[in-house]
């Protein structure tokens, strides 16, 4: 198990800290991921699900988003900042943000603006489609459509 930790923890931790921006929470989530693997999650893995590393990253991402939602940090943060301010923050690179988010912005920059925001809010901030709809003041159906179109465009870019 600790071999698994040694092999994958830097990528897992990088992904988790990129979402949570808090080392204490990231420690808790990484520990939760490893315990989950130990108990049962490893048995769920199947090559049909993709590479083991990608599957582990997805698992870690899911746990990190669960954590984000459970403490309602996203909601509290966006409510505090105000929706336009948050959107502006998300739309422009910040000097303190990590390289990963900057890379994501560069990737998303190739998409029309209306398709960028939902994906950025979803992927980089773990927002649900309902939260994005509330944040952008658009119907949930529109969020779904934009995410779908955005993902399709990304697929064309990287596929």
């Amino acid at each position, binding site marked *: *198990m600790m071999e698994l930790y040694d092999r994958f923890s830097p990528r897992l931790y990088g992904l988790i800290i990129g979402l949570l921006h808090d080392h204490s929470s990231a420690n808790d989530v990484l520990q939760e991921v490893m315990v989950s693997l130990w108990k049962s999650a490893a048995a769920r893995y199947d090559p049909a699900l993709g590479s083991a590393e990608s599957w582990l990253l997805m698992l870690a991402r899911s746990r990190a988003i669960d954590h984000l939602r459970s403490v309602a940090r996203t909601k509290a943060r966006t409510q505090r900042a105000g929706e336009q301010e948050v959107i502006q923050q998300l739309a422009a690179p910040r000097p303190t943000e990590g390289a990963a988010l900057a890379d994501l912005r560069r990737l998303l920059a190739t998409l029309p603006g209306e398709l960028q925001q939902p994906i950025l809010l979803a992927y980089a901030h773990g927002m649900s489609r309902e939260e994005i709809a509330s944040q952008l003041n658009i119907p949930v159906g529109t969020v779904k459509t934009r995410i779908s179109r955005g993902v399709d465009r990304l697929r064309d870019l990287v596929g």
Partner: protein
Amino acid sequence: MPTESEQHLKELAELYCLGLADDGQVAEIESRLKQGDPDMAREVERLRPVSEALLALAATVTPPPQLRGKIAASLGIAQGTDDDHAALRRLPDSSSRPGRLRFPPAAWAAIAALLLLAVWGWWPRLIGGGHDPLSGYRVLAADPGTVSWSVGGSGEWAGKGNVGTFLWNAALQRGYLRVAGVDVNNPGREQFQGWLFDSSRDKHAVSGGVFDISASTPRDAAGNYIIEIRPDLRVTSLNTFAVTIERPGGVVVTDASRLVMAAKGGGL
């Protein structure tokens, strides 16, 4: 215009790709993928480049050094030592998907002579039967002399991918097959038979016994079938393990025409 079902599938795959699917949705997607649902597989595969590209953006950050010890302690593992959960060590990476195994014809041809020797009792079984396979599996898994190999569908089951793990302990001359997502057999018509290839025997194969995979086969807490493998002859340098489907009671000579699973030291 996509149907409601197609739209649902597409949305599920998108959520999965973006890592936004909840536990229930992930369970549904992974279950359908493991069952070989072609529509789900096609959609997830279509979006996999996006998922991989997004995941590739994750930075590499070394966790605090003390976290390793904390996690090890929470799992009951001593730092600096390995654990008894050998299957986890074998979680394959993207380059280790099992492939189709091809055995040398000479290996199969040698099975007859070796199994005849087994029938004559050259190497009587070292340990009597009747014990709990799950307990035996746990004991073997905890033994530091046990090795663990990934088991892949092969031959008839080549499309199943990785199906589990094979544990082998040379000192104890015993192994366990731990598999999931495999087909059950009808014992009245056919049975599974394990085969062990010993490189020190010039590619000779040794029967690991006949077994069934059915509702009465012992399973661990995760639902994996646990099957004990005991060679009829001493195996000193195991390099390959395989399972074939044979007639009830097994065979002395197999033509390997119904190969279903295989594992190999170092991967297939």
